[in-house]
């Protein structure tokens, strides 16, 4: 009740977990209590740097400064100090690649963000005569610009003198989890250089079955092993924070943001799936201790690993542009003032007026993996208004979800009975209804929509005994809303055909793939 929300009344039971979410557009810190409830949130956006079309970078120094600020801010808002924090969990934007100098702690270049397409040509070159599936059997991933390994290679090739410094062991590689943990645990003063299995599974350098760096692939891609962090489980104490607001607190989990959301949604059983609607959208399905190879354009990834238990694998389908399309409507088109207004605009009409919007801004991701595709608005007539386009924007997210669910069914044989959703776009009621309509399945939103941070907090709490097992965590899960399908099946099929036709029209826009 409200008494429990008042920090002044319950001094004895004031034990919390702090989760840091180093995301694509912002860094956040959320403090959770034992029931998995949010006590406080602090957030700070960082600059998106676009040096060329298709290139996206972050300033890692700015990010580390922001992380320190949001941690201090979240603790202040919760009116607690480090004594009350039992562990820190980390979750992060995946694949974003950073190289830094181990003695000065200075990044050698801006971080290359996961959305960045500069390694397109390199990935094709690395495919040699085999193509984009050259390393799929070992890594579960297709050769695509998305993943970290080729980004490391690009930096080594393009930053003056870097390869020599790397080979001398002066340089460290990390995805953002490694960068935050290294800095948290002391940085140049003994910071630990680690990553977790989920983040490592997105580099294209780790063997999915052995959970070790694959020497042959590192050599093929051109990444010296000296750069690489130690691969650890997702839930164990890596070290303790040194200095700052959390000095001395154990750093006890790391999970890529999507895997963290899978964990936070308590998808601990085979066949359970979640979809996170943010800048991009990511649908992950738990496939248990078996890594299932995908033949339908999905990727195979590590879901999580708790301490020395067996790893849990997942199938993943990703959509590059979902929330980003709404932001584009706001910032580039100026058709709305805030992201939430897209629903107001879209609700002012009954349907899409025949318009379909395929936002292949940086190519198509799952299940197509076509980097030669670019965005298309199809079906335009004089009848179409900005409101129809707004509706097409929301429907684009829903249709892309449908395509991924179809692919998962093909690969795993598991029929999706309901979809657990989270992320900022779950506040969009019209979108959630469309997803349920297009999937012909219920869509369920949990009571804590911040499942990414919650997953990192859960994993950290398990590592230090704050929670004893995953059943404790399941007991915290509550349904906040459920959307059920209301669409006529014939209408669904008819519109799906239009969507698929629009998708075909995006392909081959760039010449590279012939």
């Amino acid at each position, binding site marked *: *009740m*409200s008494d429990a929300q008042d920090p002044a009344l319950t001094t004895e039971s004031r034990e919390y977990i702090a989760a840091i979410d180093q995301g694509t557009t912002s860094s956040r810190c959320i403090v959770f209590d034992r029931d998995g*409830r949010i006590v406080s*949130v602090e957030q700070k956006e960082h600059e998106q740097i676009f040096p060329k079309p298709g290139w996206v970078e972050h300033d890692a120094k700015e990010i580390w400064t922001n992380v320190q600020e949001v941690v201090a801010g979240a603790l202040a808002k919760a009116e607690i100090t480090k004594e009350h924090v039992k562990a820190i969990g980390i979750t992060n934007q995946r694949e974003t690649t950073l190289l830094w100098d181990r003695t000065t702690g200075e990044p050698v270049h801006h971080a290359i963000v996961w959305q960045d397409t500069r390694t397109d040509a390199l990935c094709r070159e690395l495919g040699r005569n085999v193509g984009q599936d050259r390393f799929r059997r070992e890594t579960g991933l297709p050769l695509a610009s998305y993943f970290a390994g080729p980004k490391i290679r690009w930096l080594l090739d393009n930053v003056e003198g870097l390869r020599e410094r790397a080979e001398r062991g002066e340089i460290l590689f990390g995805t953002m989890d490694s960068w935050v943990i290294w800095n948290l645990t002391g940085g140049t003063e003994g910071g630990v250089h680690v990553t977790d299995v989920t983040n490592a599974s997105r580099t294209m350098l780790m063997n999915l079955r052995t959970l070790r760096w694959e020497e042959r692939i590192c050599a093929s891609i051109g990444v010296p092993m000296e750069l690489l962090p130690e691969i650890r489980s997702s839930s164990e104490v890596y070290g303790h924070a040194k200095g700052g607001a959390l000095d001395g607190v154990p750093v006890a989990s790391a999970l890529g943001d999507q895997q963290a959301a899978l964990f936070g949604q308590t998808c601990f059983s085979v066949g359970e799936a979640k979809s996170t609607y943010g800048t991009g959208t990511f649908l992950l399905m738990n496939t248990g201790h078996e890594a299932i190879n995908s033949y339908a354009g999905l990727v195979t990834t590590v879901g999580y690993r708790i301490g020395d238990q067996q790893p849990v694998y997942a199938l993943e389908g990703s959509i590059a542009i979902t929330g980003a399309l709404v932001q584009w409507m706001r910032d580039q088109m100026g058709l709305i003032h805030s*992201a939430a207004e897209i629903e*107001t605009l879209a609700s002012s009409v009954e349907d899409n007026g025949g318009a379909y919007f395929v936002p292949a801004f940086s190519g198509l991701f799952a299940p197509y993996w076509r980097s030669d595709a670019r965005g298309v608005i199809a079906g335009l007539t004089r009848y179409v208004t900005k409101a129809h386009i707004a509706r097409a924007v929301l429907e684009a997210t829903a249709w892309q979800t449908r395509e991924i669910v179809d692919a998962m069914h093909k690969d795993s044989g598991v029929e999706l009975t309901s979809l657990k959703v989270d992320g900022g776009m*779950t506040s969009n*009621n019209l979108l959630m209804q469309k997803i349920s309509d297009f999937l012909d399945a219920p869509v369920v939103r949990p009571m804590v*929509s911040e499942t990414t941070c919650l997953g990192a907090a859960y994993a950290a709490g398990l590592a230090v005994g704050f929670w004893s097992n995953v059943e404790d965590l399941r007991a915290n899960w509550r349904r906040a809303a459920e*959307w059920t399908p209301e669409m006529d099946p014939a209408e669904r099929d008819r519109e799906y055909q239009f969507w698929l036709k629009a998708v075909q029209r995006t392909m081959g826009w760039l010449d590279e793939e012939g």
Partner: protein
Amino acid sequence: MARSIQSLERAAAVLRLLAGGERRLGLSDIASAIGLAKATTHGLLRTLQQEGFVEQDDASGKYQLGAELLRLGNSYLDVHELRARALVWTDDLARSSGESAYLGVLHKGGVLIVHHVFRPDDSRQVLEVGAMHPLHSTALGKVLAAFDPVAHNEAMESDFASITAATVTEPAAYDRELAGVRARGWASDVGETWEGVASVAAPIVDRRRMPVGAVAVTGAEERVLDGSEPRSALVAAVRDCARAVSRDLGAGRF
């Protein structure tokens, strides 16, 4: 036609002057342009400045249009924005109270439900977003009518239909109840809309303290009430939630 008020005319002239031509003007420029003594002009500018319609540059001492003017022209709060801001807090409210939570705004003489969080007991429930509830019988409606003058007018003009035996159907009695709602800062509905169902609501205000919506919890009278009144812990939870959402919308601490 009624005689116009001279100082308002003069203030309007000052605003028009600052809106056109040079962006920033000094006191003597403004005084000579509108043909008034400096002292009179200074008085006008100071009042406009207090209202936020004019700002004075610290370094040069010159005047320019204030941010409040922009806000006046752009004051409509999108209901979907309201839902997005309220999401985390209403989840927390449903969870801590154990009851379902609702967010309502004034719409066409009634309360439009713009957000609904299920009661956290895993029972089968149906999302009620988009439903319309009456102003005169619901806790959400009473809060809106108590704090928003437009909602008040619409409520007083409504039909005061008897929905249950407990519904207040007398406009004067309803208006007296609203005075109480204003004084204590929250409203309740005890079986007035649905038999056996009670509800507690509190207002959400924006940065200018204007009421933009209301938040409520609703549940069986046996759980929500303590005797004939809502449990005080539940009232506190609803008001905490309303304050948290209001803070997110930029309202100061209150």
